[in-house]
C-alpha cells in the first residue's frame, strides 16, 4: 500500500513538472486557490485554463535560453 501511495505521489509530481515545463501550472492547485480566496469567481474548465495559460506563455517576457 505504502509503495502504491509513493508511486502515485511521484507520478503526480512528474506530471506537474512536465506540465510546468510547458508553462501550464497545476490546475487542481488553481481551483483550490479560487475556492479559498475568490469564491465569487467562476471556475474555468481544464480546457479553458489550458488555453489561457498557453496564450500567456508566449506573451513576451523572458523567452528561453540559447
Amino acid at each position, binding site marked *: 500500500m505504502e509503495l502504491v501511495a509513493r508511486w502515485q505521489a511521484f507520478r503526480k509530481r512528474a506530471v*506537474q513538472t512536465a506540465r510546468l515545463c510547458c508553462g501550464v501550472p497545476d490546475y487542481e492547485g488553481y481551483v483550490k486557490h479560487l475556492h479559498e*480566496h475568490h469564491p465569487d469567481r467562476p471556475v474555468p474548465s481544464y480546457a479553458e485554463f489550458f488555453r489561457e495559460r498557453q496564450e500567456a*506563455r508566449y506573451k513576451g517576457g523572458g523567452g528561453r535560453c540559447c
Partner: protein
Amino acid sequence: MHTATVKPNPAAKILWFAIAIVGAWCLGVVALRRGEPINAIWVVAAAIAVFVIGYRFYGKFVEHRVLQLDPSRAPPSVLRNDGLDYVPTDKWVVFGHHFAAIAGAGPLVGPVLAAQMGYLPGTLWILFGVVFAGAVQDFMILGLSLRRDGRSLGHMLREELGPLPGIVAMVGVLVLMMIVLAVLALVVVKALTHSPWSTFTVAMTIPIALLMGAYLRWFRPGRILEVSIIGLALLLLSIWAGKFVADSASLAPIFDLDAKALAWWLIGYGFCASVLPVWLLLAPRDYLSTFLKIGTIALLALAIFLAAPMLQMPAVTQFIDGTGPVFQGNLFPFLFITIACGAVSGWHSIIASGTTPKLLANEGQARMVGYGGMLMEAFVAIMAMIAAASLHPGVYFAMNAPGAIIGTTAEHAAQVISQWGFVVTPDALLQTAKDVGEQSILSRAGGAPTLAVGMAQLLHNVMPGEGMMAFWYHYAILFEALFILTTVDAGTRVGRFMIQEIAGLIHKPLQATESWAGNLLATAICVALWGYFLYQGAVDPLGGINTLWPLFGIANQMLAAIALMLATVVVVKLKRERYVWVPGIPAVWLIVCTLAAGYEKLVGPISFTAAADKYAIVLANGQMLAPAKTVAAMQQIITNNRVDMAMTGIFMALVVVMTLFCLRAVLKAWRINHPTANEEPYVALADVAAH
C-alpha cells in the same frame, strides 16, 4: 532548517574528505596524463566531485554569508499567491522546470567548438567557471529576485542602478537576442546543407506540430503528454522515412538545399511561426522539444556511462596558439567566450529572474534550484565535450574546419588535417559519412553535426545494429534542430513584443499586440534583424560559425557581466562589503574577457576589420576572392564585416558604460553607512501561513 548551525558529524567529515581525495585524483589524471588517451569516466568522475564539493561548500557559503537567505522568510510565491504565476511549488518540480528552461543548444555547441584546443582547457573552464561564476550568477540573481517580489533583471537594474542603466542593459538584451537567434539558426543551416535526409525530417516537424496543435485544440484539449507521445512516434517515423527520401531519385533533390536557400526558408518559417496563433505551431513544437531535450540529455548521459569511451582528442592541441581552424583566436580570451552556456551564461539571469522566483516555496530551496540547476547544465556541457573528444580528431577537424581551409574533397581534407598531426585517411572520412548516411561530413561546423556523430557512435557502441548509426545521427540532428527552431519561433515572438513596445513610444497604435498591422510590421523587423546575420553567415567565406560564434559569445558574456555587476552592487548596498569579491571577481573576469575579445575582433589579424580590408583591397585591384564570384558579392562580404565591427563596438561600449554605472553605484553605497538596497520588507512565513 538552518544546517549551517549544526555541527557536522565525524562520518560526514570523512565522507567529504573521501570525495575531495577521489575528485583530486580524477582531476589529476585528467589534467596530467599525457601521451596516452584517457577514459571519459575520469572526466565524468572529476566533474561530479567538483560539482558536489562546489555545491556543498561554496554554494552554501554564498547562501548563508553573501545572500543570507532565510527559510523563515515568506517568499513571493506565498506573499502574492495567485494560483497561476505565483504558486508555492514542490522544490523538485521547480528544479525540473528551471533546468528545462535554462538548458538549450548553447551548452552543447560551445564545448564542441572549444574541443579544437583539446579537451583539457574547455573542461577546466567549465568545471571552475561554473562553480565560481556561472552558478554564482544564476543563484545570486535568483536570490535577489526572491527578495524583490520575483522582479525581472531589467526591473532590478532600473531599481538598483537607475533608469538609464536599465534602458542600456535592455537594448543590450534585444541585440543579444538577435545574434542568438541568427547563430542558432545558422547551426541548423550547417547541419541541413545538402542533406536531404536531415532536411526532410526537420521539415516534417511542421506538419507534425500542426497536427498536434489541432489535436490539443479540438480533440483532447490540454492533454500535453498524450499528444507529445504521438508527436514523438511520428518524429521517429519521419527519421525512418527520411532514409527512403534520401535514396529516392525524385524526392531527394527537393530536400537537397544549399545554405542560402535554407537560410531563406528559415527566415520565412520564423516569420510565419511567430505570426500564426501560438496554439497552432509554436506551442506544440515547444512541448515536443522540451520533452525531447530532457530525454536526449538523459540518453547521452546513459550512453557515456555505458560506452565509457576513450578520449581520442589530445588533452591540449597546438591550436591554443590561436591558429585553430574552428574558431580563430588565442586561448585567452577566446576559450572563455566560446564556452558561454555551460560555464557561465548571461541568459540564465533572465530565467532566474523570470518564472522560477515566483514558484519557490522557500528561500532555503534557492541553492538547489539556482546553483544546482546550473551545475546540471555544466554537466551537459561536459558530456558534449566528451562526445566531441571521443571522436577521431581527424574526423572532428574535417567536420568543423571551413571549406576555405580544408577544401571540398575527402582527399584534400585528409591531406591538410594529416599535416596538422592528426593523421587520417580519406577513406576514414568517407566511411564516417557513409556510416551516418550522409554524402559528406566535411565542414559541417556549428557543433550539432559533430555532437550527432559523437552521440551516434556512442549509442551504436551500446546498441549495435545494421544502419542504426545513421538513425542515431539523424535523431541527434533532428533533436537539436527541433529545439533550436523552437527558440527561433519563441524568440522572434518575444523580439516582436519588444520592438512593438519601442515602436509604441513613437506611434501609439503600433503598441497594440492584437493589431495585425503592428504585429506584421514588428515581426518583419525582428525577422529582418536576425535574418540579416543568418544570411551573412550562410554566405560567409569562413562558413559563418567562425565569424558569428565569437560575436554571440561576446554578447552572452556581456549580459553575464551585467548580471554579476548587479549582484556586486547589491552586495555593497546591503553593506556586506567583505563578500564583494564573490560576484565581483567573476564580473571583472568577464569584463576583461569580453573587452579583450572585442578588441581583437576590432583590431589585429583576426579582426572583422582585417577581413573587410582584405576583401576591399582585392576588390580595388579588380579581382575576386572566394567564395565571392561577383563584385556585388565582394561588396556584400565587406559590408557584413563592417556591420560585425559595429556590433562588436556596440557590445564593448555597452560593457564599458554599464561598468561605469556600476562603479558609481558601488562607490556611492560604500560611503553610506547603512543598507540602501531595495529589498521588500521581511514577512515571516509563519505569519502568512497562519492566515
